[in-house]
């Protein structure tokens, strides 16, 4: 069958094509599924944009290869005496890409710009009450309460040059029509923009006057978005691009099978989980139980957890690439509760027993809502889970849809059980607690993604204490308690951490970071 070997033969043709491409010295051509919408660091708080702009702009602090916080534009920082907040001493002799000097004024201006109503990233500065310039290279951030994690939470807060922004009337992120900062950049980072054709091609070239010494040998970085996964892979295998993030899970074996290419597999910090409608008093989609919501009974929720066999999902759907998850953050993230690191085992009999105990011996039907274009194999996972639930009597009526309609439906409580993936923005356990476990409280901007409105007084009480606790041991004890409560009450069913799969040519060394950010400055093309 000619069509069959289409997929598996070795690529003499492709290898040959690489040289034919006439790659100039150390150009890196890479692709991803989505194009960063804008070049304005404060306009949009989304991973693709922040990841790309981290190559151009820099924050006071930055994350190292192992996700730890290290000095960047701030050389050091200490808590303020006498009031809550932090003092940052800035690095001297740093210049922006247009040559102007970097001073505290620029940091203050960037703070005012980033916390303005027009900026989508203003939620990072919720705890900040005041910012004071002490001298040309020191600046204080005053917070409304002790905030040990504040430096970590502003790793993506990028600094603009005040005169450049005001000079090109881009003092605020574009409210409606684009302004100068949407298409042009002036950061302190390792690279600057050499060409921008939105949605088609974006070119980065090294910034000569960068304060840090360059580990990379890239002379030109060309980024092109490729929406269709199969086309992207073809582009890599045909040698037209050097690196692509991500590639479909099922094609890993293929790429590894071809010499000249390799695959980088890691764990993304995103945990995939099922959530319940804790606050719903009836099931919306059930055909047999319409007067009460069985999922309000923790035993039913535990039964659902026991019905899922993560190992077989791993083997068949993810080809052994995922890690089972016991809580809402993966292992290794600060605040991970080692004490509660085991998850409910796959035990269909125990699940049926629990259901019977809860009064549903032959189970019931309910509506399971999932996305079909947001997480890796999201639709396939939901179908697999639905068939596992059905095995124990929980008849799931599956409805999948594009993510553009998904969040509004969840906000209108249009589900019985729903699929959710969560990646902690601050890479700390406090983040999911603040957004997913704390009961919904709009003014305080808490629990905004807790769609089922799970609420536990003790958890609500512990959150502010965790946020202000300086002593790490005490903080971890409180976090362990929260994780224990939510596990015991099965607030969510954490399933697994999503695999992070990049593919590149052999002659490209690069570092894969857990937050799926691609740093051009760690790349060497040999």
């Amino acid at each position, binding site marked *: 069958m000619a*069509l069959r070997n289409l997929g598996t033969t070795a690529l003499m043709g492709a290898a040959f094509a690489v040289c034919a491409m006439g790659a100039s010295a150390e150009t890196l051509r890479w692709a991803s599924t989505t194009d960063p919408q804008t070049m304005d660091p404060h306009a949009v708080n989304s991973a693709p944009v922040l990841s790309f702009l981290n190559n151009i702009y820099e924050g006071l602090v930055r994350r190292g290869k192992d996700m730890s916080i290290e000095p960047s534009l701030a050389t050091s920082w200490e808590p303020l005496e006498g009031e809550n907040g932090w003092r940052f001493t800035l690095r001297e002799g740093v210049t922006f890409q247009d040559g102007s000097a970097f001073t505290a004024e620029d940091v203050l201006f960037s703070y005012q710009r980033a916390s303005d109503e027009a900026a989508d990233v203003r939620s990072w500065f919720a705890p900040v009450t005041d910012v004071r310039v002490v001298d040309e290279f020191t600046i204080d951030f005053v917070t409304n309460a002790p905030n040990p994690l504040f430096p970590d939470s502003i790793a993506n807060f990028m600094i603009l040059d005040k005169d450049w922004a005001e000079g090109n009337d881009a003092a605020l992120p574009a409210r409606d029509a684009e302004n100068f900062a949407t298409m042009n950049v002036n950061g302190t980072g390792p690279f600057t923009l050499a060409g921008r054709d939105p949605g088609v091609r974006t070119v980065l070239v090294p910034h000569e006057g960068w304060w840090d010494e360059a580990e990379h040998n890239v002379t030109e970085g060309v980024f092109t978005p490729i929406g269709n996964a*199969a086309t992207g892979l073809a582009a890599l295998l045909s040698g037209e691009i050097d690196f692509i993030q991500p590639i479909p899970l099922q094609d890993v074996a293929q790429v590894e099978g071809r010499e000249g290419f390799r695959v980088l597999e890691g764990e993304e910090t995103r945990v995939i989980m099922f959530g319940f409608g804790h606050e719903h008093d009836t099931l*919306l989609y059930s055909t047999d139980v319409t007067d009460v919501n069985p999922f309000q009974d923790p035993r039913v929720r535990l039964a659902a957890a026991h019905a899922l066999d993560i190992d077989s999902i791993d083997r*068949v759907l993810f080809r052994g690439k995922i890690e089972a998850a016991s809580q809402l953050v993966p292992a290794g993230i600060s605040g991970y509760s080692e004490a509660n690191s085991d998850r409910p085992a796959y035990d269909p009999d125990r699940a049926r027993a629990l259901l019977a105990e809860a009064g549903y011996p032959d189970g019931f039907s309910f509506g399971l809502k999932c996305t*079909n274009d947001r997480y890796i194999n999201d639709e*396939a996972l939901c179908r697999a889970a*639905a068939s596992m639930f*059905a095995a124990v009597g929980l008849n799931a009526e599956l409805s999948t849809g594009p993510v553009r309609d998904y969040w509004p439906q969840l906000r209108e409580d249009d589900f019985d059980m729903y699929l959710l993936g969560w990646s902690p923005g601050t890479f700390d356990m406090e983040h999911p607690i603040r957004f997913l476990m704390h009961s919904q409280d709009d003014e305080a901007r808490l629990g905004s993604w807790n769609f089922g409105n799970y609420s536990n007084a003790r958890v609500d009480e512990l959150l502010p204490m965790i946020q202000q606790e300086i002593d790490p041991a005490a903080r971890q004890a409180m976090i362990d308690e929260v994780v224990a409560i939510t596990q015991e009450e099965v607030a969510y069913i954490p399933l697994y951490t999503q695999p992070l799969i990049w593919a590149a040519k052999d002659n490209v060394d690069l570092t894969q970071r857990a937050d799926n950010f691609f740093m051009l400055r760690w790349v060497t093309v040999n």
Partner: protein
Amino acid sequence: MRDWLKRYEPVWLFVHSPAAIVAAVIAIAIIFGAVFAPWIAQVDPYDLSSFSLFDGLLPPVWEDGANPKYLLGTDDQGRDMISSILYGARLSLVIGISALTIAAVLGVGLGLAAGFYGGRFDAVVMRIADVQLALPAILTALLIDGIARGVLPASVQQDVRVAVLTLAIALSLWVNFARTARASTFVQMQKEYVQAAIMMGQRPVRIMFVHILPNILGPLLVIMTVDLASAILLEATLSFLGIGLPADSPSLGTLIRIGMQFLLSGEWWILWIPTLFLVALVVSINILGDFLRDVFNPRLR
């Protein structure tokens, strides 16, 4: 038997053209398989409990590592390919045929009236046709999908997806019927039997549907077969663009979309078997369509 065969010419022509026979055999076999899928297929792919994940990604029986229980292998969910295809073809045919009927009723009705009344009414119908042609099929599908989601209550939405898709496809096909019906009606309007009916004072509706319609069925029938093929293809394209049917009640188009993800990962059969099946179905329908056009086109004889 011989003279009956001879006397009724289309049948005689059919018996003597091998292509039409082969096409008819394939089409009937597929339609038979689709209609009787529940009894033929081993597994009901729509019932989630009837298959398990562990049988996922099994190759066809002539490949190594295959499970004889699944002759043509299984897809990523462990569904038997043959059953999925039969059920998928059934859904595709249901959508295709119902979309076609709606398009035919709407198109022929408007086309006949436009041809009969002519003048301003004809111009209005043709402009509506222009608007419909200017809206790409994907957008029609998207908009109807959006309306259904906005208007209908949440619980009903899932099983109304098929109706939404059918309506969307029908809306993008009715223009062909309208244009052909209109052109044929203009020809018939010159004929004296129509003038006689008008002179008698018969109601326009009766003239259109009792007198004119039987005489313009020939060309419409040909469009019917050609558009059935494009309706099925359109359903496949829409599901590729993410607007088609949900993955748990696959049509042929959805199966192909799922198959696309495994194109390079070695599981070639998930894509190519449904695609070859679709090609066989569409080609045979088209060949029958061509045959019908030659038979019903008086001038060709």
